[in-house]
């Protein structure tokens, strides 16, 4: 962490300077006995061009962390440094893709993707050209005039991704973007993401609860604990690139999945026990 403060004075660069630094971030909801510590002293960083995944069971504080990094929750302690600035409010270098479906149902694909450019007053011809480029990039060429309601869930999520990429954010931040999709679609979309990420050398932070997705896509995986959400371990994924979804059948892939699952299992079962306890508490008849 201290190397960030010194970065400007150090001229001999060994590792590239991190683009995003998460330093002892802490967030509690509520006060008193009902308070929930959603994120507890989480620290890690993301270097330029790197693909990092944060994995953890449901309810461990991933979305909270996503909202903090994205600047939507600025009431936290610790520091999130994006290219050296402390994040308090949405940072222009960060582009967010949300877990829930977030296309505008009243705009067609083209106008959805061109939306951020329209806000910035980019001229019509240029904005349509750039929107077309990113629509092609996510593989939706030919669907420009379709409304979101005419598309599948996977296609709509790709529209959201294109709409975020069109601003050319330095850091792409995604919260479980494929959570609502079936496994096959997820694998294929993963290929698309890998390819885009490699083409654009896009620094990416993916929040997920899906183990295969994390291993398939990442350079590094940050494993979180359940309640309070802490960093349990960071795992480097040394699978060869370029990588496709075929990698899921390799022995090395299986080894990583098994290794991370060993860590995650304990957390996930704690989360499950918690959820069951809550259900029992809420429904005394059950």
């Amino acid at each position: 962490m201290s190397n960030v403060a010194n970065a400007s004075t150090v001229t001999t660069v060994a590792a590239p300077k991190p683009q995003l630094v998460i330093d002892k971030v802490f967030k509690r909801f509520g006060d008193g006995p009902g308070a929930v510590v959603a994120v507890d002293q989480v620290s890690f960083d993301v270097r330029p061009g790197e693909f990092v995944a944060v994995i953890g069971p449901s309810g461990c504080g991933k979305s909270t962390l996503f909202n903090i990094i994205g600047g939507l929750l600025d009431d936290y302690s610790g520091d999130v440094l994006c290219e050296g600035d402390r994040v308090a409010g949405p940072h222009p270098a960060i582009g967010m893709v949300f877990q829930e479906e977030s296309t505008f149902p009243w705009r067609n694909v083209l106008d959805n993707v061109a939306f951020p450019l329209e806000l910035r007053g980019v001229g019509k011809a240029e904005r349509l050209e750039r929107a077309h480029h990113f629509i092609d990039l996510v593989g939706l060429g030919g669907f420009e005039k379709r409304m979101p309601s005419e598309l599948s869930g996977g296609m709509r999520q790709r529209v959201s991704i294109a709409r975020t990429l069109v601003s050319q954010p330095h850091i792409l931040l995604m919260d479980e973007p494929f959570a609502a999709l079936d496994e096959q679609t997820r694998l294929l979309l993963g290929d698309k993401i890998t390819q885009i990420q490699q083409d654009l050398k896009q620094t990416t932070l993916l929040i997920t609860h899906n183990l295969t997705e994390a291993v398939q896509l990442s350079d590094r995986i940050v494993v979180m604990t359940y309640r309070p959400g802490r960093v349990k371990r960071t795992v480097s994924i040394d699978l060869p690139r370029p990588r496709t979804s075929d990698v899921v059948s390799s022995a090395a892939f299986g080894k990583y999945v098994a290794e991370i699952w060993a860590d995650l299992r304990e957390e996930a079962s704690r989360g499950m026990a918690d959820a069951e306890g809550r259900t029992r508490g809420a429904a005394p008849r059950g």
Partner: protein
Amino acid sequence: MARAASPLMTRGLPIAVGAASVIGVFGLLEALLRLGVVNRYIVPLPSDVLLSLERIIVEENVLARMRETAYEVVMSGLFTILVGVPIGAALYRWRPLRRALEDWVAALAAAPLVLAFPLFLVMFGRSSTTVIVMSVITGLAPMILKTTEGFVATRPVLINVGKSLKMTDSQMFWKILFPSALPLIFTGIRLSWTFVLISVVGIEFLINLGGLGQLINDLAERYDLPGTYAAICFVILVSVVFFVALERLETWLQPSR
């Protein structure tokens, strides 16, 4: 062959059954009247009513009356939108205002406003203005409530998209909140125009002024029973066409949502 016929069956059958029931009910009424089971001095023969329809349309200046009613409906409807949508938006924007006023607006929707007509007669005289002002007030409640509901129903994730793009308040309003609320605003428009039509005809009847409502009043005062019922049927017919048109317009204005 049976398969090819089925779309016709599924579309045609309900219409046919509907028409048959209407004809059946009136046929039965006609029979009961002719048999003397129901008193002819209270309920006219449906066949007489049907025959009077032409007389009403030709002799009673129905087209001019319709124009007058239509004018009042359109003016009231437009004012309802012009006043109701901004109030609905304001109630969304300022929560304390919403908490303070929402119940009153709902109460306004339930209140039998027509009873206040003498007050409006005093203020605006026996004129179109009275009809329009009262109808605007009648149509306002659903317009306001549906508009607020539309804004409230904006999905939080879309607002978060706006925040992440650092949109200004006015961009947020015009580019996210308003388009998101639009479907329910249209529903509000349909409901309030429906209220407005009922109100306009009702008040015309009540204060004996101008359009289709007055025609019913006139005929009733002349003890022209078949004529009165024929006029009522005519108003119902016009209303049905009006409601169907509004509904079509609503779906047409928001394709593929």
